[in-house]
């Protein structure tokens, strides 16, 4: 009997630590923890913000954790869904298309910052992204203002001047791509026909999205969407875009000079400048618009914003830090523009000197003056919380639409059915 008691004790001793885990650690404030992705952009910018803050508040400590974007999202989901308060950061970066998803899925988990910032100071569409039931939950960060970046030398050879490329429609763009290819035998642009990037640029330029203002799927009879699908099909049918697979091939296509232009968010500038031998040969025009009345030559792709966790031990310190740098410090925005090519969403900073600087890489033009002007023209859209569901639903029907198995109307309809099914 004694022996068995002893055994039982041994078993207990062996098992208890398994359950004692997290409970024994006492909660300490510690450093302000931050999760983000992309060391050359978000992380580097956050480190700049921290060093500016610490210059005035030497007692503040930070811990910046660099993760892959998918990992940030997955960790955030699992931690929030399990309702644990340990293991979460104080500040986290969330892509704009995903913001509403987090806000509505995890109510009460993100700090309400409505009174901490003056949201009129931020670019309108960015502030809207983080608005839920009249409250603002985040700090708008980088803008994904779209630009039509092109090689002046290559287009000149094909007989196109800068005026030919300013404020054009996508149809005109396709005509130019066709003419360019006929004259040079090269592609004007690279595009992955199953990537939704250009799609979203086209949609937002018309103030349209996959959803209506109530967040209901709005694919059928969506003029902007159907026009965008027609354009994608035209690019495939007339072979106007170099097929590219994945980020590296895509960046390689313009770095190597295989294609003469790229239309995407401003964050691409860093990658364009990686082709150092092409300095002075680039220029930027406004993104093309759709042939619809409401479409303008300004749009957006991507971009993300910072969020403070409601239940973090450092919540108030984190908010104070974000207020002082992201909501006040114009100099900070000048620095990140120069160092990282990041256009923030804080409009008072747009008048700063860095925005007027002439960029030798872009033929000594003040490209950021233009880009920030276009940024303030971007139509507001309600991206809702199901952008990726919609993206997947639309792309899933494109192949059949490309090869003529379905008509445009049928394709849109089956995409909407899929979308409705996946968001119930």
């Amino acid at each position, binding site marked *: 009997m004694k022996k068995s008691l002893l055994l039982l004790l041994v078993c207990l001793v062996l*098992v208890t630590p*398994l359950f004692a885990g997290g409970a024994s650690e006492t909660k300490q404030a510690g450093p302000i923890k931050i999760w983000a992705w992309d060391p050359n952009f978000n992380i580097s910018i956050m480190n700049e913000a921290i060093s500016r803050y610490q210059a005035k508040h030497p007692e503040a400590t930070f811990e910046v954790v660099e993760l892959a974007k998918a990992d940030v999202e997955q960790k955030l989901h699992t931690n929030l869904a399990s309702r644990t308060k340990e293991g979460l950061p104080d500040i986290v970066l969330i892509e704009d298309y995903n913001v509403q998803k987090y806000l509505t*899925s*995890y109510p009460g988990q993100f700090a309400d910052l409505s009174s901490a910032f003056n949201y009129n100071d931020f670019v309108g569409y960015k502030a809207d992204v983080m608005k839920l039931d009249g409250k603002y939950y985040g700090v708008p960060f980088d803008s994904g203002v779209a630009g039509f970046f092109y090689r002046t030398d290559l287009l000149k050879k094909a007989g196109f001047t800068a005026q030919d490329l300013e404020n054009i429609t996508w149809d005109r763009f396709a005509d130019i791509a066709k003419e360019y290819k006929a004259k040079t035998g090269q592609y004007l642009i690279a595009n992955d026909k199953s990537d939704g990037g250009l799609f979203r640029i086209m949609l937002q330029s018309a103030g349209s999205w996959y959803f209506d203002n109530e967040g209901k799927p709005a694919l059928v009879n969506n003029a902007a969407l159907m026009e965008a699908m027609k354009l994608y099909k035209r690019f495939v049918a007339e072979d106007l875009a170099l097929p590219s*697979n994945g980020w590296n091939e895509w960046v390689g296509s313009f770095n190597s000079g295989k294609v003469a232009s790229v239309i995407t968010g401003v964050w691409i500038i860093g990658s364009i400048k990686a082709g150092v031998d092409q300095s002075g040969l680039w220029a930027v025009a406004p993104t093309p618009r759709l042939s619809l009345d409401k479409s303008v030559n300004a749009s957006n792709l991507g971009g993300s914003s910072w969020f403070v966790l409601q239940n973090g031990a450092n919540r108030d310190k984190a908010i104070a830090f974000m207020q002082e740098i992201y909501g006040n410090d114009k100099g900070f925005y000048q620095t990140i523009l120069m160092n990282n090519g990041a256009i923030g969403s804080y409009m008072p900073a747009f008048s700063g000197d860095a925005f007027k600087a002439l960029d030798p890489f872009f033929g000594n033009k003040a490209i950021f003056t233009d880009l920030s002007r276009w940024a303030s023209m971007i139509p507001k859209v309600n991206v809702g919380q*199901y952008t990726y569901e919609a993206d997947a639903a639309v*792309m899933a029907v494109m192949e059949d639409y490309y090869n003529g198995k379905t008509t445009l109307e049928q394709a849109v309809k089956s995409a909407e059915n899929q979308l409705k099914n*996946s968001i119930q």
Partner: protein
Amino acid sequence: MANEKRLDRIGWYFITPACVLLLFFIVYPIFFSLYLSFTSTKGIVSQFVGVKNYLRMFGDPMFFLALENTFRLLLIQVPIMLLLSITFAAILNNKSIRFRGFFRTALFLPSVTSLIAYSILFKMLFSYDGLVNNTLIKLSIIDAPLQWMSEPRLATFVLVIAMIWRWTGYNMIFYLSAMQNISEDLYEAASIDGSSKVHSFFTITIPLLKPIILFTTVMSTIGTLQLFDEPMNLSQGGTTASMIGPDNCFLTLSVYIYNICFKYTPNFGYAATVSYAILIIIALLTFIQFRLSGDREEAMRKTLERKGGVR
């Protein structure tokens, strides 16, 4: 008797920790996910919806696409792989082959590589300017590089090749060890009776391998139905792309579950429903496989008994 009981009790103490862990980490999740599959969740907002998730699943084209992709892989990959495994095992079981140890190790080695590492390796091999395209061009088999990873059929082919490379050796080991358990006497007796090597293989080796063939088939079926790492890593954009593989050809059921949980608005309830669908499919397939082989084994035993071969 008393001693036996005491031993019994001590035995129970020994397995208690394992049982407790099993209870917490296997049994509880199984029942909890069953409950989850009757709820619709959006992060931490959850509501009980009864069988609505199951109805939704039957009207979900994406689910059926994933099911179709998974079964396509299952039907192509598993038979080829198992045939290869059994062939290699038979060859390497032949004592007259030189460097047997080397070949065994070489064939088994792929299965110790990490799933992610080998997926990325194959992605590189079959990339547009990768080794495979370059070699094929040098050998003048093709004129222009093939778009392996952007054409659904080619991409499926790459995935199948990769999985065969990774898992053939693993299954071969099971066959090899089973073959070594077959008594030499049987072969000797058969050859004295005038049976050829090939004939012996089909009448002695294969019948005696039945339980192992069943085991590997069941395991491979389960493995393929849960396939996740390879398609996820082979597909270009991974979690951010609009599609998993060209024209969604890598969208397997497990990838779809991942998307429901982490890429789309997290609906853990519906994800649990889809995992239960996998469970039911696996259970059904396993049942069928057991029945098929069980019946045949029974029949085989009876014939052998009649012939006086096996007791």
